[in-house]
């Protein structure tokens, strides 16, 4: 379970998160939508401790992310994150990209790590690209590799930050299919997304962010059919 309690976060004078409260249960898929600069990415990077917070707290399975005593490297093993930029490691093959963390962070043997990697890569449809370097992959393939790389650590939670935004339109589908598959497998996910149909069809709840505030959260039927807040309606009409 991820518990976000009254989290505030500023970059200099700019308050980016203004008291966020959100609880994500095991197995739940929460989509986060909202305009650019509303703090969606910042929230994700706070959850895995890449960014410090100013006040409030975030608990992952009861562990306070920003407590001084928390071993973030250990905690991050169970929180996978995939970014808008694919962040493939260009000097490693697809297989090595995926085995790197299991081997060097978890200390797995090469054989065990490769077994898991091949399994994850097959899952995302990259079984025939193991020995290829990322620069030979399309954007969609690189992004699927990034997903497999995160999954190879067997995380309990997955955070996705606009993973299709940097893709050519014809490649968006293959990545969204991968996310759907994950959701069907019961993965707990927070997906920041601009794909409204994905948010509608796949998530249990949709959160709408506006200027650092979570203006509204509810089941997709509510957000897309019967939004309670004017900003939500304005935003949705602007993206349609």
């Amino acid at each position, binding site marked *: 379970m991820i518990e976000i309690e009254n989290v505030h976060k500023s970059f200099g004078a700019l308050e980016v998160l203004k008291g966020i409260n959100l609880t994500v249960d095991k197995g739940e898929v929460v989509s986060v939508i909202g305009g650019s600069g509303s703090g969606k990415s910042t929230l994700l990077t706070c959850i895995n401790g*890449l960014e410090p917070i100013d006040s409030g707290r975030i608990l992952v399975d009861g562990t306070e992310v920003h407590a001084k005593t928390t071993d973030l*490297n250990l905690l*991050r093993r169970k929180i996978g994150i995939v970014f808008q930029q694919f962040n493939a490691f260009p000097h490693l093959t697809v297989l090595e990209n995926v085995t790197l*963390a299991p081997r060097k962070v978890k200390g797995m043997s090469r054989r065990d790590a490769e077994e898991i990697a091949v399994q994850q890569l097959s899952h995302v449809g990259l079984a025939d690209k193991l020995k290829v370097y*990322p620069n030979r992959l399309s954007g969609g393939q690189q992004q699927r590799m990034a997903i497999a790389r995160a999954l190879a*650590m067997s995380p309990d939670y997955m955070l996705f930050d606009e993973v299709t935004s940097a893709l050519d339109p014809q490649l968006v589908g293959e990545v969204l299919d991968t996310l759907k598959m994950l959701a069907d497998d019961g993965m707990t996910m927070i997906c920041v997304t601009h794909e409204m149909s994905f948010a509608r069809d796949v998530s249990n709840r949709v959160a709408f962010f506006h200027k650092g505030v979570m203006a509204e959260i509810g089941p997709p039927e509510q957000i897309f059919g019967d939004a309670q807040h004017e900003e939500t309606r304005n935003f949705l009409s602007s993206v349609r």
Partner: protein
Amino acid sequence: MFDYTFQWRQAFRALPQMLDGALVTMQIAVLSMVIGITIAVLLAVARNSGSKWLQWPAMAWVEVARNTPALFQIYMAHFGLGSFGIYLSPFVALLAGITFNNAGYLCETFRGALRAIPGTQVRAGRSLGMGQAKAFRLIVMPQMFRIAFLPTTNQMVWAILMTSLGVTVGMSTDLTGVTQDLNARTFRTFELFALAAVLYYCIAKAVMFAARLVAWRLFRY
């Protein structure tokens, strides 16, 4: 005015000795590169660190190494330290001087390479549970070395040529030292130094060729 008669045979008879010298030259160059690269990585990290206590000494090193004659740097290692009672043999002084110089230049090369690697790479590594050092070692360093490879190779050639300055601190076993000795005994100055120059040229070319092979083998992306 042109009454010098070439005697190449005598020079060629000295070839085995000169090749031995070339080996010593290579030894110093390789050692100074290996140590220089190691120090340069540390200097680059220090210069990019937030801490003044690390930044300043690193910056001083780079400034002095790059803006004073290499000859002085070798002199300092031998005679300079000598006046403080620290005596370095010609070999060690030459090695120290060139390493000092290499580290200074390579630090800037590496820093340039580091700038070319997006910060998101480290973020991705950290997100997978790597600590700062591990992410640097596994993700940043390999990419850095690739970007810096060609300039590093050039520095290697430069290091080889710099070893010839060793004679000024009494180095007598490297290629220039050996040639100098032979010259003092035979006075076949032109032949001997021409031959030495050809050897330096061949070593430099061989290093570039080897580097290209290594790059081809190593950098498959």
